[in-house]
């Protein structure tokens, strides 16, 4: 998982510019950038798993993987072309460093539960709109009831859910037994602190607020 850092956060805009093509998920891409950077730069350890469930708008993911030396930089230039391994949704068999093939929403969190049950520390990134999918809540309920403490869900909240989450996403996770907090998703120190602030016997949820 972890790799020697080759580039820094300030280099990411230049990498994103190399990812040309008819990307349709610009805001979606940028909304994940800060959390992805904190995960790969500060949090993930060698044996940890990271699953990008919200596969929409993966350019930020590709840029961070490239900055960390996991993905060859030259691959960024062919984004979404026929022979490129980098499409609008990541394919784990094609993208170096991708641990989940995603795109269809609501699959990452259940798979993350399985990987956590196998004894791994697992981080899974989902979107607030993605949480509309009922399959997520099967995973949220089960992980909470069994106290799956090696699982952390990061929710990017950019208010993309059509009917929103009145009362807050974090309250719903907390009701199911998770340790859940909300942070400013652009505050790297706050995101890091929240990701590290886990509770024994409870899965963790960090809602990263990324309003426009």
């Amino acid at each position, binding site marked *: 998982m972890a790799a020697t850092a080759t580039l820094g956060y300030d280099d990411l805009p230049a990498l994103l510019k190399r990812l040309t093509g008819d990307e349709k998920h610009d805001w979606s891409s940028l909304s994940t950038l800060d959390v992805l950077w904190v995960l790969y730069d500060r949090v993930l350890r060698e044996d940890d798993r990271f699953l990008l469930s919200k596969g929409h708008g993966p350019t930020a993911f590709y840029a961070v993987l490239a900055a960390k030396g996991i993905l060859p930089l030259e691959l960024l230039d062919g984004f979404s072309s026929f022979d490129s391994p980098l499409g609008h949704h990541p394919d784990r068999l094609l993208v170096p460093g991708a641990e989940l093939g995603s795109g269809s929403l609501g699959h990452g969190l259940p798979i993350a539960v*399985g990987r956590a049950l196998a004894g791994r520390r697992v981080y899974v990134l989902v979107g607030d709109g993605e949480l509309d999918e009922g399959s997520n809540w099967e995973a949220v309920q*089960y992980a909470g009831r069994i106290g799956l403490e090696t699982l952390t869900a990061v929710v990017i909240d950019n208010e993309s859910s059509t009917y929103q989450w009145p009362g807050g996403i974090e309250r719903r996770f907390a009701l199911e037994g998770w340790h859940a907090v909300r942070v400013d998703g652009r505050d790297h120190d706050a995101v890091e602190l929240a990701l590290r602030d886990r509770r024994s016997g409870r899965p963790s949820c960090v809602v990263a607020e990324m309003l426009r």
Partner: protein
Amino acid sequence: MSMRERFYELASEALRNDERTAVVLADIGTAKIPEHPRRFNVGIREQLMIGVAAGLALEGYRPVVHSYAPFLVERPYEQLKVDLGHQDVGAVLVSCGASYDASVEGRTHQAPEDVAILSALPGWTVQVPGHVVELERLLARALRRDDRIYIRLSEEENHAPVPAGGHGEGLVVLREGAGPLVVAVGPTLGETMAATADLDVTLAYLSTVRPFPHDDLRAALRGADVVLVEPYLAGTSAAEVSAALADRPHRLLALGVPNAEFRHYGEPHEHRAAHGLDAAGIRASLEAWTPAG
């Protein structure tokens, strides 16, 4: 002992003896497979059941997943496609409640279309044992492998097991004749044997229906007439027969469960008869199809 009951024993044994085996359940079978650190019951959450199996497979385990066919194949169909297929990991799916086994439960608990829809996804091996001894052989093999395997258990069972063919789990020719090649799948063999006992046909048996044994079918076919007797949706393997015989003129009679909302309860044997899959029904279909002389 039914195949389903034997499966519970075998799964429990695998948990005890094979550290690679994990069992994922959604409340069905929990009373029969004792608690174990690698037995995960996710409650009535079948999408999660498949997702958890995929996660375990990604970490090197061999997940065995079990429920009624509608809840194992139909409800989490996209999970089978994405969580297993697209991630390129395997699992052993073992269903109970084949076709009309759950006759008194009604349509919601019946999935005669399971093999057809699973066959639409790439990379699946689909196995339909007709006897508990065949189940033992197929499950033992499945646990040793890494790919995606669906084993379809039925309450209907043949009187005796059919040994594997000389080259694995292909088509097994039971007797040869001058008439049509009659292929009985899984638990339809007993009724098919009774229906054809006095007919001059080639009778063959098949329990591994995907991948379909194209070469075996070509080798066994003497004339041009093929009869498929499948215990699930009629015509499920018709395209496979057509592909196998693409360069040979042939006729096909595909028997199975009709594609219809069948709003009856009662006993499985009543459904079998209503679908024309008992010996009398199979015989009647053969006589109506086989040209005179």
